């Protein structure tokens, strides 16, 4: 007691204060350690690095276990969502954050898991057996693949965009995204090396791509390249004049080596509901399986389905000037805001996925089960490189549907007006309609010498819906869309 008494009161209070300070320091230090430390790496020129990347890209990545994170804050308005954890930013703008775990043994053995609190959605491919699992609904879905998937594989090609069943997942695959971006390198881009970074605990070079044109909404793209294996680890896209990325996809963990075989095999657990779904040999044109196969079945309707800018990039927004590089109809959706995600607080929302595909030529709302198509036309790409714009020809049914969504506050689009011109059209229902309307509400009315229409501006993407039902979208300033609207969209 007397010994203790010698410590003054002030000295005693210094102990908890010291512990708080120490805890703060440790938290800060670990945050710094996990963030971008700049490792010292042998100097390389841009050309050397690109050559290494090309070499590495030619080889399959090999078995990996990885965690992929994708986040975006596009300046879209917060969309109605059944999920409170969806999160809106300080300005009430939607912010997406997706994390999926990937176990990849090869083209025929893949597991992709999206973890939510107290829940999980899984895709397991074991040879030709494809199983989807949703823990919220305790539903196991067996997907019967058409025979041609044998040939294409689901693939490494999970790792290359616009392919196969996993095209949706490819949307957030940094490898695929970087490949698209690097393929687009040309005279329109200024390429340089930025300071080295650490991504997923791995030292990496950083390539900076800056469009030379000022009419692109993209200010800079940073691609982190693994210093040992020369594979892209992370892609960050910055809007012009912004210092924080508007979109980012990258590995947060990456381990090379064979994942356990138990990850791929699946037997429906006792008590689970088991469904069987057959993927049609010819999927509905323009509808990415990423959204059909996964989204509508509710396996990570978000995580594995189409994702906003990734999908956009993959579908050739500016990344790939050649829209025919992948089979049409298997493209990832372009502008998609899919949500109600599975969460502990929103039970039973598996399958409630909303995908609005504007630039592949369709406005598609995928509701509980079946996709709803409002108008379908083959999209065309106008312009090239950073100024690529995806456009669909004028379509009265699109115009009518837009008009109706804007004017009516309740009810749904009547098939008569929206669907007469487009066969196979049915009603978008429920929350999907609300999302569409909310998106349309965020548009502003614009007009000019080119005509008139509604413009949706986000930090990275502009979308123009003209009064005659043509849709144009690209990572460009609206002026580019107006100019393009005069021409081919006629």
């Amino acid at each position, binding site marked *: 007691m007397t010994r*203790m008494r010698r410590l003054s009161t002030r000295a005693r209070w210094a102990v908890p204060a010291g512990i708080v300070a120490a805890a703060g320091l440790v938290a800060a230090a670990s945050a710094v350690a996990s963030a971008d430390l700049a490792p010292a790496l042998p100097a390389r020129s841009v050309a050397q690095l690109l050559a290494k990347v090309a070499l590495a890209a030619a080889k399959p990545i090999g078995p990996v276990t990885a965690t992929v994170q994708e986040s975006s804050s596009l300046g879209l308005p917060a969309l109605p969502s059944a999920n*409170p954890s969806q999160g809106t930013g300080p300005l009430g703008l939607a912010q997406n954050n997706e994390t999926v775990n990937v176990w990849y043994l090869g083209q025929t053995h893949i597991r992709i898991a999206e*973890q939510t609190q107290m829940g999980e959605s*899984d895709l397991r491919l074991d040879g030709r057996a494809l199983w989807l699992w949703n823990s919220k609904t305790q539903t196991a879905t067996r997907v019967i693949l058409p025979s041609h998937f044998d040939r294409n594989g689901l693939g490494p090609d999970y790792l290359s965009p616009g392919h196969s069943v996993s095209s949706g997942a490819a949307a957030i695959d940094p490898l695929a995204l970087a490949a698209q971006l690097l393929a687009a390198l040309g005279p329109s881009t200024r390429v340089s090396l930025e300071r080295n970074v650490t991504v997923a605990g791995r030292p990496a070079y950083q390539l900076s791509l800056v469009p030379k044109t000022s009419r692109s909404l993209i200010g800079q793209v940073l691609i982190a390249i693994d210093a040992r294996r020369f594979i892209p680890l992370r892609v960050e896209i910055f809007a012009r004049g912004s210092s924080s990325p508007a979109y980012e996809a990258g590995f947060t963990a990456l381990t090379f080596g064979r994942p356990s075989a138990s990850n791929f095999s*699946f037997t429906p657990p006792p008590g689970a509901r088991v469904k069987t779904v057959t993927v049609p040999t010819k999927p509905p044109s323009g509808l990415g399986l990423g959204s059909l196969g996964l989204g509508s079945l509710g396996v990570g309707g978000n995580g594995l389905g189409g994702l906003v800018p990734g999908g956009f990039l993959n579908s050739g927004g500016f990344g790939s000037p050649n829209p025919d590089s992948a089979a049409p109809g298997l493209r990832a959706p372009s502008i998609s805001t899919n949500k109600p995600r599975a969460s502990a607080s929103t*039970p039973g929302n598996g399958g409630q996925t909303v995908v609005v595909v504007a630039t592949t030529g369709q406005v598609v709302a995928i509701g509980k089960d079946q996709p709803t198509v409002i108008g379908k036309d083959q999209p065309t790409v106008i312009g090239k490189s950073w100024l690529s714009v995806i456009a669909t020809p004028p379509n009265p049914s699109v115009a009518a549907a837009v008009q109706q969504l804007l004017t009516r506050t309740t009810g749904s689009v009547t098939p008569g007006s929206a669907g007469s011109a487009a066969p196979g059209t049915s009603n978008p229902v429920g929350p999907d309609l609300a999302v569409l309307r909310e998106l349309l509400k965020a548009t502003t009315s614009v007009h000019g010498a080119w005509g008139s229409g509604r413009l949706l501006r986000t930090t990275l993407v502009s979308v123009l819906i003209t009064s005659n039902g043509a849709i144009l979208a690209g990572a460009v300033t609206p002026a580019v869309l107006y100019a393009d609207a005069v021409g081919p969209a006629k």
Partner: protein
Amino acid sequence: MWTSAASPTGPDSGELAERQSRGAKHVPPWFRLFRSELRLVFCRPRNLALLGVLAFIPVALGVLFKLSLSGPGGGGGPAFLNQVAGNGVFLGLAVLVLMLSLFLPLAVCVVAGDAIAGEASHGTLRGLLAVPAGRTRLLAVKLASIVLFALASCLLVVGVAVLMGVVLFPVGRVTLLSGTTVPLSVGLLRVLFVALYAAAAMVALGSIGLAASTLTVHPVGAIAAALVIVLASEIADAVPQLSAAHPFLPTHFWLSFDGLFRAPVDWSGVQHGLLSFAAYLLIFGAVAWARFTSADVAS
């Protein structure tokens, strides 16, 4: 209220007399203190009533679920509830998730908030300080009893719930969140880990309650303060605009045990949670120590 140093001849209560008379010669005083403290926590009618309520709620919920569940759940209700009908083991988890939001923290706050302030308000604190163990040891004994109470209440809740689940529902191989199954024994072991994790969370909360308890002589004030911290933290945790602060909230990791029910087991959530609990225990333990060893005790 607070005056100068504790006097060894404080007003004796019957309890104190009992505490001192029972001490054998070779048993160190702090251990005698610990024993009497345990008796105080676990034999006190109010605390027994608390434990009784904690044991009753899983029984009531089990019966309720049994009456309302038919067939596999549609994913509604609290986490894991959709699996209860298929496997009674999940009743333990479903009930724990439900009770972590109010009943368990409430019980722990009552015991922790009462630890020092209760003695002060009863006038028994001065007598306790007469035990030749020192204030630091007295505080450690109080904390240890809170740890045991937290452990007992979590194990009680999960244990009773699992028992009810076994009685009311079929039992078998346990389906993990990942869709794969593990044998019942492995599943039960994981449920036990979850209960221990929840107990760790409650210990961290208990240290907050203990710190609050050293700041006042009114136990109700300390209990209320700890509960307000829980509620404020839960509310802040639900506000997405505060997402940057979420990992630092005391309640943020309470439910982060779901990684134990994945295949392969994902330890990251549990690790973060345990780190957070340890930090809270250290910080508020130190606050309690700084306050309790420097304050003057009059009653």
